């Protein structure tokens, strides 16, 4: 994901590879869990009149996921810009 883990150097050890894979897994599951929780708060009606997801809710959910990804990409780009401009974390 995000092109991580694509840069393979032949010299890295087994433990390093495993912990990188683990970190990637943690990131993806963390992202998924927060997506589930946040889109639930934003889209699902809390009166629970029915156990099915309504049409309006499913439309909201689909857009919620798409927008979450778009936000993710944009924040990434913004942070990259900040990093390059050198005003971030005291880098020159």
């Amino acid at each position, binding site marked *: 994901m995000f092109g991580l883990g694509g840069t393979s150097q032949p010299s890295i050890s087994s433990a390093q590879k495993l912990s990188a894979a*683990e970190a990637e897994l943690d990131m993806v599951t963390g992202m998924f869990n927060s*997506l589930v929780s946040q889109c639930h708060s934003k889209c699902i009606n809390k009166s*629970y009149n029915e156990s099915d997801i309504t049409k309006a809710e499913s439309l909201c*959910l689909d857009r919620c996921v798409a927008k979450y990804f778009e936000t993710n990409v944009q924040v990434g780009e913004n942070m990259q810009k900040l990093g390059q401009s050198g005003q971030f974390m005291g880098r020159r």
Partner: protein
Amino acid sequence: MDQLNVKEQQEFQQIVEQKQMKDFMNLYSNLVSRCFDDCVNDFTSNNLTSKESACIAKCSEKFLKHSERVGQRFQEQNALLMQQGQR
């Protein structure tokens, strides 16, 4: 992730299974907390009222449907992102 050898893949599989167990416990306790928060507000009795109990049933069923749908969209968006990254 694809460059792990067989032994590393086995080790990784174990890590994945441990995390899945943890994840399931987390899901469970989150669902309890969410449905309790949304459905149980009347403390004039020791037991859940039939209304509360019906609400909890719907709340949990709906949440599972919800996370299934979000999971599908997540995979689609993820695949899209990977595709764009390769160009």
